[in-house]
């Protein structure tokens, strides 16, 4: 028997090429899959992300090398054409009810204020030595909007994609843990007990005109936001016009599910050990948390400032919902309010800043692209 052939066969397997970095990434991957299956933490995202991390860290598979499977997914759907985030946004638009914003347009400003953390983290990142493009991608994590973070990072700093996307999705999932202490610290019990009047009903005409007007105004104002904004508003027009239910259902169900598979797999694939296990990733996670905390703070402060001038006070807890994790952040506002008064229902009021926050984050990303690309 020719033992050199056996040796060659053994060498051609991945087993002899496993690195410590690979093992660390497998642990991360299995943790995600474990959390998704046993704790039901964001399973639609964590299962494909975890599996993507696992397979991209299998030595010699070369899945992320040019013209190989994950490289093709990643390169053409994210890196080169940045296709998947706008399609996800069409689904988000078809799922979003902008009624709360229309019935109380002040909430649009709260959604903008909750982007405060984006700019705080941007400047801190610059101070820590990241370049302008990298700092913008780290800052945008404060919007708590995964697809927007991916959209921006793919265009400005693709080498950071794994870390920024993972941080954005992690903080979206951690909204109920991160926000309440800040909300309680920033508000008095009396403020948290403020009851708000029911919002006025919104007509069908208003609902149909909104996506058309919002697309026109925001895309003219910040043209670089058009891919995300236009697609989101297209999805919303599908939902509200009432004559294309099939398209609305496809955008908000099958299509968004299909795209989520590839987007999540690509996020995982963007995390090979040699790229992810760097001190920059740790910085990005810390700065993402700073961004997210300051965004929460910004929304609360503006809501409190409104109350200095408004005759009919608003509950400042709705301000923190301006981070765009929809509808999680609005639900957190309701939970915190109900702790002090269980008959206080601010959920639908908080949906206003919440959906406005999505528009705010997309606009911030568009601004960064205009200035930095």
């Amino acid at each position: 028997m020719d033992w050199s052939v056996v040796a060659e066969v053994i060498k051609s397997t991945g087993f002899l090429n496993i690195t410590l970095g690979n093992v660390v990434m497998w642990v991360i991957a299995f943790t995600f899959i474990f959390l998704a299956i046993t704790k039901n933490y964001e399973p639609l995202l964590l299962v494909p992300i975890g599996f993507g991390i696992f397979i991209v860290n299998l030595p010699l598979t070369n899945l992320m090398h040019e013209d190989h499977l994950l490289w093709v997914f990643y390169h053409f759907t994210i890196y080169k054409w940045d296709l998947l985030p706008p399609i996800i946004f069409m689904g988000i638009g078809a799922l979003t009810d902008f009624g709360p914003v229309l019935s109380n347009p002040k909430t649009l400003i709260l959604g903008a204020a909750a982007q405060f953390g984006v700019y705080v983290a941007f400047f801190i990142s610059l101070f820590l030595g990241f370049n302008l493009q990298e700092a913008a991608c780290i800052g945008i994590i404060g919007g708590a909007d995964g697809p927007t973070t991916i959209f921006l990072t793919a265009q400005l700093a693709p080498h950071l994609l794994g870390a920024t996307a993972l941080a954005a999705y992690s903080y979206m999932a951690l909204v109920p843990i991160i926000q309440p202490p800040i909300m309680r610290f920033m508000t008095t019990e009396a403020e948290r007990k403020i009851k708000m009047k029911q919002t006025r009903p919104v007509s069908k005409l208003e609902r149909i005109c909104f996506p058309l007007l919002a697309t026109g105004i925001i895309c003219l104002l910040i043209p670089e936001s058009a891919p995300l904004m236009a697609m989101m508003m297209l999805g919303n027009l599908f939902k509200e016009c009432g004559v294309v239910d099939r398209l609305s259902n496809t955008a908000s169900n099958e299509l968004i599910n299909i795209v989520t598979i590839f987007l999540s797999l690509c996020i995982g694939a963007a995390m090979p050990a040699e790229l992810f296990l760097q001190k920059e990733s740790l910085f990005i996670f810390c700065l993402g948390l700073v961004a997210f905390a300051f965004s929460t703070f910004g929304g609360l402060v503006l809501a409190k400032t409104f109350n200095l001038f408004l005759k009919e006070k608003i509950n400042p807890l709705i301000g923190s919902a301006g981070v765009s994790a929809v509808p999680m952040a609005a639900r957190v506002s309701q939970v915190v309010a109900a702790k002090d008064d269980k008959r206080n229902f601010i959920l639908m009021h908080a949906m206003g800043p919440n959906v406005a926050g999505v528009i705010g984050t997309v606009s911030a990303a568009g601004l960064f692209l205009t200035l930095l690309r």
Partner: protein
Amino acid sequence: MSEEILAPMPGSIWQILVKPGDQVKEDDELLVLEAMKMENPIFSPVDGVVKDIKVKEKDAVDVDQLLMIIE
């Protein structure tokens, strides 16, 4: 004197926890309203007896819609 329980926001009735004739106390949970994938318990504002329930489980309700009367 009767007390009307109105829907505080649009949503759907997830669970009804009392039936007509039940004695309830202030702050007892009467029903659960689901909105934005969140279960929101609705509590009794008074002590009394459930006189009438105007909705059933899975019904979609609008804001200020009458849900229940407590006497």
